[in-house]
């Protein structure tokens, strides 16, 4: 366990994230006994929550936090003892195990990081992205916490369906619109308040800015040497993008981050000295060991781009009807993502601000980001994200780019073997170096 380490952040803004993103990091101050509190799944619209001024917490994020604090195993084991299979998503097991233990103790488990999670009054799930999401809050509510559940349920057009065909667009957006409206009705009932359209409009405007800023940051990361690596992306960009989309302070945070990254590019300051290799990161990171990226950095490799929590290009929306704008944004983003190939990244439509890039985009990144290889994290308990990696590996091989698959889990460190994985990384670097020498000789 001692080999597992936290990330060393390179960027000053990322180091200041906790202090700059108070809405998120001081959320426990918003908890009021008996007042509405939603546990939410990434994939729903954070802007809607802020339009209702509804305090929220995110079990998936809590999973990453427990992983980083090395207590996820404790909670996962509790869920397993309650009958939940070890195959199941470790975020989910962590969350169910945490709740099970809290109920057993009648109090927040002492090992829970950040004072644990607040007691929810409702569960806001997302039917999109993966099956476990559809079933997670069902199991949570029926086994442990009998509180109301609502799932949004947008669907994504399969890879061989054309989302630009007006009939297809109408078919999918109709469901999207209805599921978002159903969610609003649920929130109105639960909070006893009407949706504040003005607040929603403002949040969506903030989100538009935020998406554009993060997009710019992602473009800036193409520079050589790379100004921002995956360790900073995962520690500094995921929380505001997934859980704070539309919050003003998150937008300002991204502006600050963009400025810093831009300055670095202007001064040719890289994440690591003597950058030798540039790799694509594919998969969810090992949250309990983000220092892994630093360890690979010490061997001369940097990760300028990732396939997860990918923001995608900004799209234009008409904010006059903000609910319709949310539908418009979701669909336009889905279409953009779909354009790049959806054969193994099929979930493209959600009211959130993140997705995953299609095959053709990843192939293009080889040139855009000057990639020497790809490292793919096969997470046993999350097949939704790791299925398709072999296909991408095959596609990258056609571009002459090698890939390394490492195997473990995103939140459950029991499956991480530092010596095996670092051995694989060294071997991979050796192979990349050898083929470089070969190419130079040819």
């Amino acid at each position, binding site marked *: 366990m001692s080999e597992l380490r936290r990330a060393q952040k390179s960027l000053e803004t990322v180091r200041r994230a906790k202090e700059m993103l108070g809405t998120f990091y001081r959320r426990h101050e918003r908890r009021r006994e008996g007042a509405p509190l939603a546990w939410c799944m990434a994939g729903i619209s954070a802007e809607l929550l802020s339009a209702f001024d509804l305090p929220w917490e995110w079990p998936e994020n809590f999973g990453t936090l427990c992983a980083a604090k090395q207590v996820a195993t404790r909670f996962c084991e509790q869920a397993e003892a*309650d*009958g*939940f*299979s070890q*195959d*199941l*998503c470790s975020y989910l097991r962590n969350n169910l195990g945490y709740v099970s233990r809290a109920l057993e103790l009648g109090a927040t488990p002492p090992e829970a990081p950040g004072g644990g999670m607040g007691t929810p009054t409702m569960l806001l799930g997302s*039917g999109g992205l*993966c*099956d*476990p999401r*559809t*079933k*997670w*809050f*069902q*199991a949570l*509510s*029926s*086994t442990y916490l*009998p509180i109301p*559940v609502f*799932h949004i*349920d947008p*669907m*994504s*057009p*399969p*890879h*061989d*369906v054309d989302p630009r065909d007006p009939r*297809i667009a109408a*078919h999918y957006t*109709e*469901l999207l619109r*209805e*599921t978002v409206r*159903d969610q609003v009705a649920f929130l109105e009932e639960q909070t006893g308040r009407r949706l504040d359209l003005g607040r929603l409009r403002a949040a969506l405007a903030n989100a538009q800015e935020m998406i554009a800023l993060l997009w710019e940051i992602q473009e800036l990361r193409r520079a050589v040497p790379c100004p921002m690596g995956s360790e900073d992306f995962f520690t500094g960009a995921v929380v505001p993008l997934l859980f704070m989309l539309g919050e003003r302070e998150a937008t300002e945070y991204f502006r600050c981050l963009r400025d810093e990254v831009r300055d670095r590019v202007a001064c040719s300051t890289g994440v690591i000295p003597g950058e030798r290799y540039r790799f694509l990161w594919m998969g969810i990171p090992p949250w309990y060991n983000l220092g892994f990226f630093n360890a690979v950095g010490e061997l001369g490799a940097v990760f300028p781009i990732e396939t997860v929590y990918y923001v995608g290009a900004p799209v234009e929306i008409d904010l006059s009807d903000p609910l319709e704008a949310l539908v418009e944004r979701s669909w336009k983003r889905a279409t953009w993502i779909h354009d790049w190939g*959806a*054969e*193994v990244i*099929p979930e493209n439509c959600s009211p959130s601000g993140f997705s995953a890039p299609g095959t053709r985009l990843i192939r293009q990144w080889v040139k855009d980001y000057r990639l020497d290889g790809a490292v793919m994290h*096969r997470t*046993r308990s999350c*097949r*939704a994200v*790791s*299925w*398709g*990696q*072999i*296909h991408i590996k*095959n596609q990258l091989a056609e571009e002459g780019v090698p890939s390394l698959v490492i195997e473990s889990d995103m939140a459950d460190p029991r499956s991480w073997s530092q010596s095996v994985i670092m051995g694989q990384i060294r071997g991979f670097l050796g192979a990349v170096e050898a083929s470089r020498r070969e190419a130079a000789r040819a």
Partner: protein
Amino acid sequence: MALRGLARARALYEARDDRARELKAQGKRIVGYLCYFAPPEILEAAGLVPYRIRGDIRERVTDADQYVEPYGCPFVRNTFDQAVKGRYDFLDGVVMAHSCDSVQRMYGIWTHYRPAAFTHMVNVPHTVTPASERFFHRELGLFKERVEAFAGARIDDRALEASIDLYNRTRELVWQLYQLRKSDPPLLSGAEMLEVLIAGGGLPAAEFEELLREVTAEVRSRRDGPSAKRARLLFYGCINDDVTLIRLVEECSAHVVMDDTCIGARSLLGRVTNGDDPLAGFVRYYFTGFQCPRTYRGTDRSRFDYLIHAARQFQAQGVVLYILSFCDPHKLDLVDVRRYLQDAGLPSLVLEDDYTLTNLESMRTRIQAFVEMVA
């Protein structure tokens, strides 16, 4: 002499796709499907032959590993491995549904590496709401259009009605056979029943109807039915398209008298309403009322009432829960199902498998102990 009834069902089951290949040789077009969310009635109405794609539990997954990850539904991986090995080359089309992540993702990989003349995925929402029912209705309309385009002719209303009637007749006949399992001992074993149903998945519906009639007549008058056993069980869980496991349970002195699985009670009993809007009938049958754990149906345990009801109706004393590794939908229902069954006085036994049945002997020991307990 040509085989009839149960013997013919067994031969068809063993021969897997021989009949489909014969039909193909006669110029028919065969369309494989993985899940009932894409109603086979529609394919049949277009003059195509629907073929329910099977895995092969005896065959190790090898070639598919070049294209798809090792972790993930082992059944879906196995079917794709069959495809990579050329076993499904007789199919003119492949239709899948977004039944779960595994099938949804496999569709993209399958169509990339093994493209067919006709491929389609039917998208299926995860929750049952008026909006999602409308979506699924439209989705079936699009599916029908694609099938028509491939078949080269419109499916006229009469053809669709006739196809629905035909499928309803087969389901009615299946139900009659199920009824013959209510007696003790049942007139038909669980393994025999499953053989008939799996055989039916590889036949045009009219031929399946004929087979069912033969089997029903034979079983009604048979004297060589199952002998008395110590317990009666219900078999619940993931896709089971091989009779080995049911046979094993029955070797352990328990009758499998009822089931809640895909190739069984979940999709082969009941009727599709045949009215002015046949697609609405499909929505009700294959989505709203379709008891597959991949669909969210609220948090109340009463969502499993149908299971308790089925167990009572068939006087099952316990339930075998057959779960494949990495099956998120089933695994996430497991804790609830077990507790609910327990509260209803029905003990349960979980048999987990990776679609290889390599641990058959340890399963035998556990089944024997379970039978001992419930008997």
